[in-house]
């Protein structure tokens, strides 16, 4: 009885998991999903905000490839084959486009360095200015007897 129940349970699990696994391996491409990751190659804007003739041609190509069952990656590869890497909305890791990756990193490094430097300056004991009186050396804490006597004398002043 138990092995049979186990087999039914495993079968049910397999039915539930199989479609999820298949869709994870080949996610179904959609026009809105691709449109915001590629450029209108002539207008210099993202495809989803453009309605120029070349943008319409790009959309038609994407729709055709979706109908052929191509994945998002395959469609982007096809777009690059037709229009070059400039069709991708993400900057390329070559030439001047490198600056799109490097500048933010440099700015973060500079900002962190600046904050660290400012914190170090702030925590450091100030350098003595010329003519400034010598700072008093730190006093050892009072022992209980001296503390009691000091309180008594201060109390006498308050009277």
């Amino acid at each position: 009885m138990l092995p049979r129940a186990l087999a039914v349970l495993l079968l049910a699990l397999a039915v539930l998991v199989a479609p999820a696994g298949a869709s994870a391996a080949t996610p179904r491409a959609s026009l809105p999903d691709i449109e915001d990751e590629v450029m209108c190659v002539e207008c210099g804007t993202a495809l989803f905000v453009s309605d120029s003739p070349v943008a319409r041609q790009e959309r038609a190509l994407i729709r055709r490839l979706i109908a052929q069952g191509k994945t998002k990656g395959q469609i982007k590869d096809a777009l690059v084959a037709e229009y070059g890497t400039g069709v991708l909305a993400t900057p390329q890791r070559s030439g001047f486009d490198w600056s799109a990756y490097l500048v933010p990193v440099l700015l973060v490094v500079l900002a962190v360095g600046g904050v660290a430097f400012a914190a170090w300056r702030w925590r450091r004991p100030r350098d003595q200015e010329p003519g400034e009186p010598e700072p008093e050396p730190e006093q050892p804490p009072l022992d209980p007897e001296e503390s009691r006597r000091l309180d008594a004398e201060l109390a006498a002043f308050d009277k």
Partner: protein
Amino acid sequence: MRLYWPVVIAATALVGLLAYGVAAKQTDTSIDQAVASGERIDAPEATLPLLDASGKGSLADHRGKVVVLNFWASWCGPCVKELPLLERTQEKIRDQGGMVLGVDYKDVRENAQEFVTRFNLSYPHLRDRDGAYAEKYDSRAFPETFVIDRQGKIAAVRRGPVTREWLDATLPPLLEEKT
């Protein structure tokens, strides 16, 4: 004080980067100015894939001929409209040492080939898939046509559709020039 120079250097580098980015996007009008003043400058060259066959080609392959270099795309209505006129021009100047050379710009190969077939275009076409070649000609509105003399220099520029009149006025003197 110690922080001063690193900040100045970083700020200068950032401003320089921005200036380069802006300057790189500026329209260059040197070709138009040169042609307008009667000067002929070297036509930019590049080896590009052929549209209708495997292999590559370039403007330099046709040195010694007067070349009507036409940038077009299947998604560009005015470009498609002038294709029959360019084909008639090809037929007319072919025997006089002239030719039309199409450059298909940022286009789907299949779509472009459809027009080549539809209009029975007999002249060759290169494929400028990312527009880098057109950029060398400061292209900004399609179609654009450049007439290259037998020495490989730009003799005439047409930003916008060509007309029969413009071709008739531009080509005969260049076809008469010797190599």
